[in-house]
């Protein structure tokens, strides 16, 4: 019997790859209107225009990377460690509940309501402020992400290590991290993306002075010229794809 599964999977793979290809093609096009199926112009014109008009794209890229890596490292680490304290706490349900609240507010709205305090603390319009603000958004995510990890089984492993004379450090390094590795990597990647793609919050707290790549290219997506919009989309999504590739290649190797 011929299986339909490989066929379905191939279609799924094509569907996943389609947006990436389409966006690259659209960014290379021009004069492409209904009802033409193919663009009248195809070439590097749009890329040349944007790379010429946007000074300091590389700088933006570096600061984006710096911000996103900081946010991902800090929120994943603190999320993992603090979630242990929270989910082993006798009042863990109440505490979990509290963690949901910041997640409820949309980041843009959250930032609009928090900007006053950031202004007061001098965390406005600089990279530190943006990192702190994004961390506030990413932390509850990371914390809750690990909620299902801290179950009875893990607890009993920990107790076992303690019984066998292992100290705390050994418990974390030898038992907990290896067990949570898959989750930690997903969480790292997710928090990295939360930060990488954050626009509303970054633009309010960074007031456009912290020019992350997202801030720089985001403006074009909403504007009339969708060829530039597609180009901006490419600039936004390909760095995470590369990261993902590296991640898969070097880190996920033994996993999944």
């Amino acid at each position, binding site marked *: 019997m011929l299986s339909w599964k490989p066929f*379905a*999977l191939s279609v799924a793979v094509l569907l996943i*790859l389609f947006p990436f290809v389409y966006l690259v093609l659209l960014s290379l096009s021009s004069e492409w209107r209904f009802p033409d199926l193919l663009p009248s112009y195809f070439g590097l014109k749009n890329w040349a225009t944007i790379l010429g008009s946007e000074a300091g794209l590389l700088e933006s890229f570096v600061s984006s990377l710096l911000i996103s890596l900081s946010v991902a490292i800090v929120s994943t680490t603190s999320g993992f460690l603090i979630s242990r304290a929270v989910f082993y706490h006798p009042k863990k349900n109440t505490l979990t*509940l*509290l963690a949901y609240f910041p997640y409820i507010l949309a980041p843009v709205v959250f930032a609009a309501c*928090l900007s006053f305090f950031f202004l007061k603390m001098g965390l406005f319009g600089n990279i530190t402020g943006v990192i702190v603000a994004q961390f506030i958004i990413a932390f509850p995510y990371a914390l809750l992400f690990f909620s*299902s990890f801290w179950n009875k089984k893990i607890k009993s492993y920990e107790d076992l290590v303690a019984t066998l004379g292992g100290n705390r450090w050994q418990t974390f390094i030898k038992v907990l991290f290896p067990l949570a590795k898959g989750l930690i990597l*997903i969480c790292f990647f997710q928090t990295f*993306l939360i930060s990488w793609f954050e626009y509303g919050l970054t633009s309010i707290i960074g007031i456009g002075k912290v020019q992350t790549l997202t801030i720089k290219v985001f403006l074009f997506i909403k504007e009339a010229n969708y060829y530039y919009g597609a180009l901006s*989309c490419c600039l936004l999504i390909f760095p995470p794809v590369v990261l993902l590739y590296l991640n898969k290649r070097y880190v996920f190797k033994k996993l999944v």
Partner: protein
Amino acid sequence: MKNKRLNFGIILFIAIGVVPFVAAFIYALLYSFGVIGVANKGFTTEFWTSVLASGEFFTSFLYSFLIALVAVAVSVGGALWVTLKFRKRLEQKFLSFIIYLPLAVPGIVTGFFTFQLFSKGGFFARLSYQLGWITEASQFPDLVNDALAFGILLSFITMIMPFFVLLFLNVYKNERIEELSILAQSLGANAKQVTQRISLPILIKKTRVLIVLYFIFLLGAYEVPLILGRESPQMLSVLIIREIKQYDLDKISEGYVVAVMYTLIVSAAAIVLFFPRKGRMYEH
């Protein structure tokens, strides 16, 4: 010793996770009553009365709720199906990379892309024209900025379904569902029973927190409905930002009224869903 450490963790948790939220909420609350705000003149309930009277908030809430509900239900259902049917194949080297790719696409890009494909002058409309199905752009069906929020739903599903597939795959492995299933089968259970009694319950129970979290996340989604939504009704975040950024500075507080009501309702929902109940003690 141990307790102290735990408490330190809790204090950090409160400082990062709770204080900013409370501060932001109080700020929004004060703003909504006109106590603060440069253009406001002092305490008043006029913003609350006017928002409640217009009823726009409730329509908007219901609209957002339904969209988020449908999107999460379809995504979780689809992801469960994919996980259970294709689990083995997804572990191949190439596929295991491909399934991570959708995570690299943010909401705004999904919205942009969906619009480019499905608008009346978009890619599929052009394709339909070339195939002779339509003769004018306006004959193409209404798929973005449409009444049934098709465009928004499609974007949401393509955004979160891949995430759930990854999550379920991970839980499947971590919870040793494979081993449990083999055990059950050797005890005489058939494939259907294994799915219904073992795989599904474990997957859903272990991830229900994240499922609800994604529902909440979609409820407050901004970029996608901004690009693909209608002007009325609007999803909640779009409505809030529209009010906060509105031209008439005297009415900015109305945006904060909506923000406060929205926060209260979803907080209440979170309390109902997650608050510890006596009968559930043995669950974990």
